[in-house]
């Protein structure tokens, strides 16, 4: 595709509900990153994939957060038993390699009520 695509753009979840956020990277991009951006803050790193391998998950805030990229292309970020503090914009970025320029999607705004 022309750019990084994220879906849904907006998600409202009731506290305790599970959610899944999807990221379609630019075709051929090996590296994929997830970031969490709380209101009024800069993005914070969550996790990083190179192809299907999750090389760094040090930013995942708890074991309720899980990410996968089974075929080295589309990635899903799953949040189980959502809490109010999970409300944020979740940004996905992809690059040709881990050292290449990162291209960001428009993000998914998650609101937990």
């Amino acid at each position, binding site marked *: 595709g022309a750019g990084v695509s994220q879906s849904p753009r907006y998600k409202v979840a009731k506290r305790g509900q599970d959610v899944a956020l999807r990221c379609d990277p630019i075709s051929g991009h090996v590296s994929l990153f997830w970031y969490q951006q709380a209101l009024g803050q*800069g993005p914070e*790193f969550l996790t990083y994939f190179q192809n299907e391998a999750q090389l760094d998950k040090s930013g995942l805030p708890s074991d309720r957060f899980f990410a996968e990229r089974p075929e080295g292309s589309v990635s899903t970020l799953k949040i189980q038993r959502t809490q109010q503090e999970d409300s944020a914009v979740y940004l996905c970025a992809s690059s040709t390699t*881990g050292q290449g320029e990162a291209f960001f999607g428009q*993000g998914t705004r998650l609101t937990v009520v």
Partner: protein
Amino acid sequence: AQSVTQLDSQVPVFEEAPVELRCNYSSSVSVYLFWYVQYPNQGLQLLLKYLSGSTLVKGINGFEAEFNKSQTSFHLRKPSVHISDTAEYFCAVRGYQGGKLIFGQGTELSVKP
């Protein structure tokens, strides 16, 4: 460990005036430096980057930044701003080996007529 500090959370400026957005970083290893812009409800767009070479870097939309290693700074400047420059600006660093970006808290640039 790396960190980024953006010294101004908000910068109001009149149209056609010059502007400087300040960024300082801390790192125990050599890093690459980036400035991103985020328009409302959008993802991040790369404005410019410093990888090596000349310490004065020119980017899109008339922006430029100067890398100062001794002061560990990477301030963003534009000689004459437009209303359309109103947005959130993020400074970021990344290690030479690639991987995650570390972002500052952001500076909200508000250009008034």
